[in-house]
């Protein structure tokens, strides 16, 4: 679906799920039936959610592209706009523009092994990708899901990880920097786990999402394990405002992250990440 510049469309909150004290998921539905029917997206793409008088914020689309009833957005109430979004209830309206950007290479990844590396809390873009693969498990090779958190208490969606771990040919490994004494998995960095999952480098596609230092470390480790840089994909964030590459805020060297990304091949952006000022 081609992105458009222009006014938002109204979307209604059908329901909401509270994930943690400050994280919630809004299940949205475009009010206009034609807009709803025309809406297509890929996991990893995002919408701009907009509140009149308050402002807009880019939020990754968490739901499955083939499940057309709602567009789900998992949001952390950390900023001015997200704190107001957190107050929305079923029946309330928001403005929605999108979908924007380029998502994960789900098509090209079919038939390949996948390793998903994520750090921090509920990294939404990657959760959408995992959900997509899990719902079409037979189309993909081995699946390894590696999630890192700082404190073990930060881990959310424990049941989801447990359910994924029970799928065929699927490994789930969790890492905590600062575990409590119940922690039963890896102590240390999530990137350590890459050495343990036994990748087949030339048939692996890596999807990486989290804080940039973690993505740098993960890409470095994957490269040392001989995964080609063209098979390593990362999802980036910059100050998106317009979503269509006009406002200039999301520039990263030669790229408009909102339009050329937010998902990039490591081979294209690795040289810029980790350079202060980019």
């Amino acid at each position: 679906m081609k992105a458009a510049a222009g006014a938002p469309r109204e979307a209604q909150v059908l329901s909401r799920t509270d994930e943690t004290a400050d994280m919630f998921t809004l299940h949205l539905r475009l009010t206009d039936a034609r807009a709803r029917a025309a809406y297509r997206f890929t996991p990893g793409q995002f919408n701009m959610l907009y509140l009149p008088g308050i402002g807009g914020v880019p939020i990754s689309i968490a739901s499955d592209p083939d499940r057309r009833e709602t567009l789900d957005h998992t949001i952390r109430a950390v900023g001015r706009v997200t704190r107001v979004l957190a107050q929305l209830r079923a029946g309330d309206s928001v403005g929605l523009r999108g979908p924007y950007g380029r998502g994960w290479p789900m098509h090209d990844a079919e038939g390949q092994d996948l390793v998903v590396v994520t750090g921090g809390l509920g990294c939404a873009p990657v959760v959408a990708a995992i959900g997509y693969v899990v719902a079409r498990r037979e189309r993909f090779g081995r699946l390894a899901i590696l999630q890192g958190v700082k404190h073990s208490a930060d881990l959310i969606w424990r049941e989801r990880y447990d359910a994924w771990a029970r799928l065929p040919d699927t490994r789930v490994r969790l890492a905590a920097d600062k575990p409590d004494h119940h922690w039963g998995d890896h102590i240390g960095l999530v990137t350590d786990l890459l050495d343990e999952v036994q990748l087949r480098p030339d048939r692996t596609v890596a999807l990486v999402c989290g804080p940039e230092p973690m993505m740098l470390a993960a890409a470095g480790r994957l490269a040392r394990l001989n995964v080609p840089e063209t098979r390593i994909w990362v999802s980036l964030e910059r100050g998106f405002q317009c979503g269509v590459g006009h406002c200039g805020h999301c520039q990263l060297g030669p790229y408009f992250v909102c339009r050329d990304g937010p998902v990039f091949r490591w081979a294209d952006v690795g040289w810029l990440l980790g350079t202060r000022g980019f």
Partner: protein
Amino acid sequence: MTSASFLPRDRLQALFDRLREQGYRCVGPRVRDGTVIYDDLTDAANLPVGIGARQAPGSYRLTHEGHSRCFAWANGPQALKPLLFAPRESLWRAVRHDDGRMRFEPTAQQSRQLAVVGVRACDLAALTLQDAHFAADIADAGYASRRGGLLLIGVDCTHPADTCFCASTGDGPGIGSGADIALSELESGFLVRPNSAAGALLCDALPLRDASDDELYTAAAELESARSKQHRRLPGRNLRDALFANLDHPRWNDVAGRCLSCGNCVAVCPTCFCSTEREEAAFDGSESTRVRLWDSCFSAEHSYLHGRLLRPDTRTRYRQWLTHKLGGWHDQYGRSGCVGCGRCITWCPVGIDISAEAAAICGETVEPGEARGTREGS
């Protein structure tokens, strides 16, 4: 040499009259607050007759030259940019109903046909770049609407400023293919070359005669002399790799020590496109308008992400501006983002010269005298 017609100086008013008759709002160079800027213009007598513009790094001053020419000045602070990429634009209006429902209405207005008289070659080149940014596959409604109704009457530059270097970027000083009509100003009148159907239509209605060989020769010679007067230049047309390979060059610290991070360079640059969005809400909260304003990569908020600034200091901001302008543009739009207009040099309060900075960073020494007005050393 293409064929051209001639419009005697005392018949120049006919151009403005025909434009008005054909339904155009007409804008051209006017002297305002000590500068030449584009503003409404219906009377040829209000052109900047006899005016010159003395420019140097960090300075701009109009002069009275006592001649009868009206385009004998190099560009002022403002390009075509504000006429198309508006400094302030309403994007949409949001209306909130009592039942909580929302409606969003685009606010872009259909704009009237606009003719700009006296456009410079550098600004035509910049317009092509702004078109690629704002009016290609994902078009900005306001920009595209104004662009659609635009008629451009360019004039060759015969009086470049000290700060101009359009010859080195390949964008001037002569009017190329981007204008509907190209003019060359001579003592007694103007060579007129139509370059589009709309331009030809207008020319058909003007009191033109064939240009003489002598007039054609003189115009070409004046243009050549204007070209050779330019002494600044960029150290190459494609500096992308050289800039990105030198992100740790000590010159970034040096220029950061001079740069005030004021953003003047961005405001006057005809290709800079950054903007920021704001909400303007009605007092009772029932309505708000989304407004877009020009922004600058020298502002703190430009690099704001999750409570921190990706570019917290002048060094990283100046480096962003230069690596984008002369580097990233090649990837984004197939050429450098600099058209050699020299505005950022003239209007920089401390006279920082983009050509000297680029030369220092890309490993070329600046010839003595080429970086006048900037601090020496690298």
